[in-house]
């Protein structure tokens, strides 16, 4: 009975060990993949913002150059513009990504 318990404990330890040791490797790979996907998505967002910048901003006023403000100032201004110009959320995010990237 005692030997059986020891065997069960050993098996359980192996399972736990495999889970614990195996998990970081999988997570790191996942994280790298996630980061790559996020970087791709960010690039796509910047490109979308670049396409929309002169058209969307220019529908009311001359489009202001991205270098005119710091990234954190654009955060605040784009929040204001999202509300004032009633921009769709995704377009506001894309314009912000473009303005911040320069």
């Amino acid at each position, binding site marked *: 009975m005692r030997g059986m318990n020891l065997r069960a404990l050993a098996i359980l330890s192996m399972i736990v060990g495999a889970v614990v040791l195996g998990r970081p490797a999988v997570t790191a790979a996942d994280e790298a993949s996630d980061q790559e996907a996020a*970087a791709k998505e*960010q*690039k796509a967002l*910047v490109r*979308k913002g670049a*396409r*929309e910048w002169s*058209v*969307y901003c*220019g*529908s*009311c*006023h*001359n*489009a*202001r*150059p991205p270098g005119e403000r710091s*990234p*954190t*100032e654009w*955060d*605040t*201004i784009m*929040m*204001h513009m*999202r*509300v*004032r*110009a*009633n*921009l*769709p*959320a*995704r*377009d506001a995010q894309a314009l912000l*990504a473009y303005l*911040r*990237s*320069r």
Partner: protein
Amino acid sequence: MTRLLECIALCTALLLLAPVASRAAAPSSDELQQLRDEIKQLQAQNAASEARIQALEQKLTDVQQAQEKKDQEIDAKIAQGAPAAGGTTADLFDRWFGDNRFIVTGYGQASYDWDRNAQTNTFGARFNPLFLYRITNRVLFEASPEIELESTGETNVNLENAQADIILNDYMTFVAGKFLLPFGDFIEHIEPAWINKLASKPLPYVEGDEGGLLAFSDLGVQLRGATELFGEEGVDLDYTVFMSNGPSFENSALGTPAIGTPFLTNNVDLNKGKAFGGRIGLYPIPLAAEMGRLRIGASTYDGTWDDKQGLWFSAYGLDFAYQLDELDVRGEYLQTRRQLEGQSTDRRDGWYLQAAYKLSRLGIEPFNKLELVARWSGLQQHGLAANDVLGTEERPGNPREFAFGVDYWLTPSVVGKLEYDWGFGDKVRNNNTIHAQVAVGF
């Protein structure tokens, strides 16, 4: 026998002709030399082609490396977008008070106005700072005082707006406070001097006692938002619904003001009834079509205006704006109706149509920084005794105006404007005005 003779003759002929044929196939020494030269020439050409290919491959590698470097720089800049909390004062501020961002933007203007009928000939100035305070990524507070030096010499200070914007989700934002009236195109979108392509305002939107149809701001709450339609980039729909203190007119609290009395901002509600309004805007052209950006909008605004809460004011408007490259065309039509005690309804119509064209394609300094603007606007008063009320030099009855302007854009937000207006209306002589203005958006 005959067959044998034929065979012998054929063999003889072959033996005789074989050396001749052999001599004809062998190239001469000149031909051999020529062939050698051709081979050398081809070898030289081949060597040159290989060298060119190598040079092109090198160039391609250089371009690829440069592109990779540029991408890395962009990525690095993007990554820098959210700076880690470090040693700067701003970072320290962030750590203590959260993700606060406070900035001042806005615009200022200096102007000169000459009015033949009003006999004014004066300089003026106006300053509209806009304070933006971002508390979190979902909460923003904004306020804009308007400080204006009037032609009478007095300084007029007015709180244009002071509002909290709370982003509820991707499709809805809650706004509370004093906000610009979400009606039509002019008030919310193009009123600031650095955006308005003319120094003057179109007749339906002249302010206060000059006889415009609507107040520029109101106190209350809004829900607003926008969404993309059909998954097509550029095809959007936006909406705004609001509840506010509502309209007010000169002498509203004293009884029934006459037809055509100016519209005032209702900072203190005169009655218990609130006003309701809404606006919807549609952008039907996809971005990929590269056919410009078109917006079509419709607005409403309804509420009681008198202190007894029995008389209604109603307004509706239609507007459009279209931009394609250097061309900008926009226009609005709006109608207001106000119930009057013991009189017929006070109805007023207003409209404007404006076209502007940038000469940037000329490519010749300084003309490529010029923009030509033309606008036609008007007001029409309906109702009893309309022309008894409207018909002074300052406020002509049923006025119409043609405005022509030339803008010089020093930068995208700094502009010098020169405008000539030709106005006419009932019971007054035609008027000419000249406006010059320098506007700076900052």
